[in-house]
Structure formats: structure tokens, C-alpha cells
């Protein structure tokens, strides 16, 4: 490491102003500070500083994502072989999944980081670490069969339109990873929804799928027929089809514990999100139970009522809710930034998830739209909280 330090010190002047590679100053800085926390010292104010920095913060999120990511890789392989009617064992399944997922991760990082480095250099700033998380979130919320070029286009769209046009890291209104997903969802719906996209290789007409195998997610089953053949345990542990990282509620819970324990993500958003979903779920169950199923004749109507009657808590482990509320809704830039606002923001998202899922027949899954909606409402929520703080102060001044 001393040799590396010496080498970096030797080549550093080339990347400073006036050096021959000064156009790569931000790039060099990013790599240098990747290897070494800089020797910069405080000058005034607080002479001592916390060891925590943005890199550490983002690293904690990435570590929290890893259980769900690794599970997602295995699950991808597992369902691929299930669709072929084969059972080659754990490691073969995992490595097949790794082979499917890893290219998506690489494409997402390369296309996004390229823009990040470019914009950092144009703005003459350091490269912000935010994309380290975004770049991993994007692969985890897309179907495994998504074409790589779409990932690249969506990522670049999200970084450019979602982030850089607003002024870069810390200034964006909506979560860039979700924006990438929304872009794919509305631009290429056939690759983002349906029964075939969730299983690697299933979209390819050459593949011989075993009889009776369906790649539909349990959420889609419930929305269409009112029931699913996956057990509650399957849904909780994640042995279900779905986007790469979203299926295992257990692995996401491990991530949630890491995020909350380290203090990196807001537990208030997670708790109020769950509360919002559960309360809205109870309301919907109450509506569902008011129907008399025996009086209904149309099969699709019976399915709708059955869907309304899906136990409210089951929505916690269905679809992308757990992943969304733990990893996406808690993005501090796009969430409400006041502590009281976080309660409202989380609750709003939880409630919206169920409204979109159950009440709106156009979308089987509502997490993405609910969080984007929450993102857009967050500044308004903060505004109300800030106004209250100001009003309290004015009132105090008057009573004195």
C-alpha cells in the first residue's frame, strides 16, 4: 500500500490544473479517494470529525443490499431450471443466476458512472458516491430477462433527466433508480410485465418450458384470479418469481436491520410505510368482506372480490413492497427531509401501494408508482412541517 501511495503521489501532478491529464482530475480524485481516505485536515470550527463519510454511508447500503442480491441470483437460476423441469443443485443454480445478473450490474454501473464522471468533470467537482447505490438498485428492480441495452438506456436516462439536470447528487426530486424502472416500464412494457419476463430464458421461443409451469408472480396471480399456488412461506422466503432483488422478504429484512442499526436509513419511513400499508389493507379487507360472494356469478368479479379479501398483511411479503420501502423510499435525498415529515411520507407510500395494487386494475404492482408519488409529495410535506415550525416561533413571539 505504501508503493501504491508513492505511485499515486508521483502521477498526481499530471491530473492537477495545468497537468497533461487535467481533464481527468475528478476521475483521478475518485480513484485516489477510493484507495485512500485523503490526508485533508480541518482548519476551523470542529477540529475533530466523525469517521463517517459518504463512501461509508453508501457502503453500508450496499452491504445491506447484498443478502437480497445473492438470494436474487440463486432464485434466478432456480426458476430458470424449474421452467426447464431440471434440478441441477444449488451451486449450478446460483452460478447460472450470477451469469444472468452480473452483466446487468456491469451495464448499469458502466453507463451510469460514465455520466457521473463526465458531469463531475464538467462541474469541476468531486465524483459523488450516490450512484454506487443507484447502480446496484437498478439491476435489483428489473426483470432478469430485460435486454442489456434497455438497462443502459434507462440508466442513462435516469442519471441525466432524473439527477444531473436538477444539479446532480443531492438535488434530484425522484429516486433515479425508480425513474430508470419507470422509464423501462412505460417505454418497453412488454419487457417489464407479464408472465414471461421474470424467468431467465422464458421469453425466448426456442426454450422448451415444461408443461404447467407459469412464470407469473403471486401478485399477478392474485390480481387476475384471486388466488395463488405459492405458499405464504414461499412468499416470505422469496421462492417466487419477481424482479431480481425483490422476492425475498427475509433477506430484505436482514438489510433493513443493517440499515436501521447503523443509522443509515430512516426507521421512521419504514415503520410508517408498513403502518400505511396495513391500515389501508384493513380498510380494503373491510370493503371486500361486505360483498356476498355467493351472489356473484361472473368469475372475474369473484376474482376481484377474492383479491380484495387477500389478508391485509400478505401485501407486506408480496411483490416489491419490502424492497421498496426499505431501500427505495428511504433514499434521503428524495424522501421527506424533516423528521416529522418522514412519518407522513412513509405512511403515504404504504397507503398508495395498496390503492394502486388493489383498486386500480391497470397496474398489478403499485410500489414503483407509490414511491415516485411519495417522492413528488415529499417537498410539499416538508413545506408543511417547516411552516409549522415557523408558526410555532411566531406564536411564541406573540404570547410573550
Amino acid at each position, binding site marked *: 500500500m505504501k508503493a501504491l501511495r508513492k505511485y499515486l503521489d508521483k502521477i498526481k501532478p499530471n491530473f492537477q490544473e495545468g497537468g497533461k491529464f487535467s481533464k481527468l482530475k475528478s476521475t483521478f480524485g475518485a480513484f485516489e479517494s477510493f484507495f*485512500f481516505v485523503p490526508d485533508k485536515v480541518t482548519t*476551523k470550527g470542529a*477540529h475533530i470529525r*466523525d469517521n463517517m463519510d459518504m463512501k461509508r454511508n453508501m457502503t453500508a447500503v450496499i452491504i445491506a443490499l447484498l443478502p437480497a442480491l445473492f438470494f436474487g441470483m440463486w432464485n434466478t437460476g432456480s426458476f430458470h431450471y424449474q421452467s426447464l423441469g431440471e434440478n441441477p443443485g444449488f451451486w449450478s443454480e446460483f452460478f447460472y443466476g450470477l451469469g444472468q445478473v452480473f452483466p446487468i450490474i456491469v451495464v448499469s454501473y458502466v453507463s451510469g458512472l460514465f455520466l457521473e464522471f463526465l458531469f463531475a468533470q464538467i462541474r469541476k467537482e*468531486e465524483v459523488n458516491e450516490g450512484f454506487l447505490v443507484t447502480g446496484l438498485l437498478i439491476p435489483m428492480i428489473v426483470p432478469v430477462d430485460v435486454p442489456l441495452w434497455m438497462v443502459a438506456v434507462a440508466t442513462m436516462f435516469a442519471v441525466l433527466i432524473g439527477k444531473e439536470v436538477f444539479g446532480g447528487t443531492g438535488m434530484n426530486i425522484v429516486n433515479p433508480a425508480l425513474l430508470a424502472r419507470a422509464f423501462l416500464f412505460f417505454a418497453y412494457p412488454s419487457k417489464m410485465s407479464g408472465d414471461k419476463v421474470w424467468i431467465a430464458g422464458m421469453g425466448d421461443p426456442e426454450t422448451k418450458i415444461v408443461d404447467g409451469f407459469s412464470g407469473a408472480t403471486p401478485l399477478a396471480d392474485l390480481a387476475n384470479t384471486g388466488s395463488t399456488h405459492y405458499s405464504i412461506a414461499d412468499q416470505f422466503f422469496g421462492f417466487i418469481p419477481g424482479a431480481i432483488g425483490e422476492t425475498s422478504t427475509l433477506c430484505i429484512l436482514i438489510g433493513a436491520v443493517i440499515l436501521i442499526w447503523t*443509522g443509515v436509513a430512516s426507521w421512521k419511513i419504514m415503520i410508517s410505510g408498513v403502518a400505511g400499508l396495513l391500515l389501508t389493507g384493513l380498510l380494503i379487507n373491510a370493503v371486500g368482506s361486505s360483498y356476498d360472494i355467493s351472489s356473484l356469478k361472473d368469475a372475474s368479479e369473484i376474482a376481484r372480490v377474492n383479491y380484495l379479501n387477500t389478508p391485509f398483511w400478505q401485501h407486506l411479503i408480496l411483490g416489491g413492497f419490502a424492497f421498496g420501502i426499505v431501500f427505495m423510499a428511504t433514499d434521503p435525498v428524495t424522501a421527506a427531509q424533516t423528521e416529522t415529515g418522514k412519518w407522513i411520507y412513509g405512511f403515504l407510500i404504504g397507503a398508495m401501494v395498496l390503492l394502486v395494487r388493489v383498486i386500480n386494475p391497470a397496474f398489478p404492482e403499485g410500489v414503483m408508482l407509490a414511491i415516485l408519488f411519495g417522492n413528488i409529495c415529499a417537498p410539499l410535506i416538508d413545506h408543511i412541517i417547516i411552516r409549522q415550525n415557523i408558526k410555532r416561533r411566531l406564536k411564541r413571539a406573540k404570547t410573550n
Partner: protein
Amino acid sequence: MSKVIKLKKGLDINLKGKAELALTEASGIAEAEISIKPSDFPCMKPALKVKEGDKVKAGSVLFTDKYRPEICFCSPVSGTVAEIRRAERRRITDIVVKGDGASEYEKFDTVNVNSKDAAKELLLKSGVWPYLRQRPFNIIADPQSEFKAVYVSTFDSAPLAPDYQFILKDQVAEFQAGVDILGKIAPVYLGLDAKVKDNIFAGVKCKEINSFDGPHPAGNAGVQISHIIPVNKGENVIVVNPQDVAIIGRLVKNGIYDAKKTVVIAGSKVNKPQYIKTIANISVAPLISGNIDADNARIISGNVLTGTKIDEKGFLGFYDNAITVIPEGNYYDFFGWALPGFKKFSVSRTFFSWLTPKKQYDLDTNMHGEERAYVVTGTYEKLLPMDILPLQLIKAILAENIELMEDLGIYEVAEEDFALCEFADTSKTEIQAIIRKGLDLMVAESR
């Protein structure tokens, strides 16, 4: 009326190098150099009243404030004006007086100081008025203003801060005398440390005494004021440090500006951390020479969170009661952000140092990262026990939005209240400097 107010927000940073409660007398303070640094007083512009070579007594005026000429800054020792140091554009950085050892004092008439105006006049001409700082703006109190209170927090909760129970245990009578004269200007409120039993300040006669229980910044006057008598727009509160109250008390009792004070020398680079009896504004060299490991050390006048960086030939700041010496952090840390970090102190639990919460830390001046955009939220809120939205106020200042700054409570805050936020800031910004900028903007707006 006395309340115990429990504060939950904040953080105690357990640093190595805590001083033992034993007092040493500094030798030769009467011959030492002292300097009054205009930079200790925000929004003040010095108008010199002496030139190099002039003889002065303790209590002689060295300079006044150009904006408010009734405020005098006086020499704490008798001697000769040795040097007036200037920086670029002839800005004065130091007014150095070399003590002559004679200890001659200007005499001030302290009998018949019964009215508010008489009290103000005495404090102004004797050079102790600058010890009175006001909220809003955290500048020297404006003599023309009306004040709703004088507030004294009798304890300092910052890391390695001096213990006033120890320093002032024999000076309660002087403290009371100081409180009495300040009481003529506005009712005096005291804030006590609830953790101290048999508090020496418990018997002080004043308007109101309240106790505060909680981690740093519970000892900050601004934090305490916000819970007792919050500063609204148009109101002013005077804040005085307890040791400075004793100096004012001695002025009243003896008729002289007697600026002796006890400072704590602490920090992991100090060989024998201790309390030293000395005088205000003194050159720190005689206090620390031989007692510190000067190799790659950061010498701070004040505490590690709010103090000023000085060198070995520097001077004790006007409001400072501590000299802290810690290691510089000018090293590269290989994968410092990625390793588990069992020995790295952090508010967050992303470093495994949370396994050892009672450990004493030897923290250095490394930034531990580079400046970034504001991304993380919720950190500042855990460290600021006031009804203030810290991130929103900081952003309002950065946007120079005067109206919003006012709405969000800029009148209630001082730089020191945000010191912990700056310490824990993931984005590595200089929050105290930002707050000062905001306060300066407000002062400029009001002048």
C-alpha cells in the same frame, strides 16, 4: 422557581487527555506577552487608541469598536504595547502587550453604581463589556439595546472542557458580585449541571436557576436559553461565561480590571493535562512549553469542537478557557472508509466501534472524507436539542434567504450550537462557518 430540564439529543465525545483536578500557578505571567485579537469578535472593527511603544496599565484602553465606539477593549496587564500585527490590507490581527511585571491597574469608581446606566458605563469603560455577548447574532452585546435577560450557563459540556465547579470554587463571592451588577442591566438566569451534587452555584441569588441534564451541547447557553426564555425577533439576551462573571465581580469589588483566569490544558498530546492559573489573552507558549508533544500537533485555543487553531506562539482567545492539543490528521488512510473500523469513533454504527461505547478516543484532525452534497438527513436533528430545523436553516443561509433564515430561527442560534452537527456531518461541510455567515448577513442587514 427551579426546573430540571432533561435533554436527550446530543453527544458526549469521550476524548483522551482529560485534566486532573489540580491547580498549577503559571510563573511569570506578569512579564508574559498578551494579545487581544480582533478576530475573536465577529462584526467588530478595531479603532486603535494606542501605538507601538505606548505604556499601558491593566485596564487601559487598547482599541474601541469603530461601529460602537463606547465599547472599549482594555489591556489585562500593565506593560508596553510591543507590536501591532497586521495581515493583508492592513487588517489588524494582534495587539501585543508585553507585561512589565509591575501590575499597575487603572482605577475605576465602583461605588454608587446603582442604576442600569451606571452599571453599563462601568462595564464599558473598564473593558469587561466585550465579555457580554448577545443572542441574536452571537456578537458583543449592543450597549444601546434593551435586554430581556442575562444568561449564564455555569457548566461547559464540550469534550475536555474546563470544570467550573473546580475553577470557581473559591470565587463564589466574586461570581455573586458579578451577577449582582449584571442584574442591574437585566434579570440574571443561571443554568446548572444537573449531574453535579452540591453545586457551588446553587446558592447564588438571581432571577431564576434551572438545571440541565443531558449530553453535550446541554451546557451551551444558547441551548439552555431556547428552553427557558427563547429569543424572539426583536428580543436580546446577554450571554456571559461564568469565569468572566467572576472577572466582572472582581472589577466591582476591587475597582480594577483583574483578568486572572484558570484555563485547562488538555488533550492527548499533552503530557500532563492540568489546570493552570493565568491571565486572559496570554501567549500560550509559557503555559504549554515542555508539557506537550509538539510534533505534528494541533494546538487549539478553546475546545476541539469550537476552538481556534493557533501555533505554539499563539495567544489564548478572548472567550476561551481551555487549550487543547491533539494530533494532526495529515495522513492517508488506506481503505479507511471500507475497513470494519473497531477503533474509529462515529455517531453512526457503520464502524464497529459501537462495540466499545465507553472507550476513550484519541481523535485527530483528519476530515475523514471529502466535501459532498447534502445527501444524508436526520443526523443533525439528533445532535441539536433546540426547536430548530438545522438542515433547512443551513440551506436558507447558503441561499442567503434573509426572510427564511429569520423564520427558521437564526436569532436563537450561535455557531457553537451546530458544532456537533459539523462534527458528525457526512457531507464534511463547515457548518459553523455557514452559521457565522448567516449571522453576519443578519447583522449587516440590521445595521
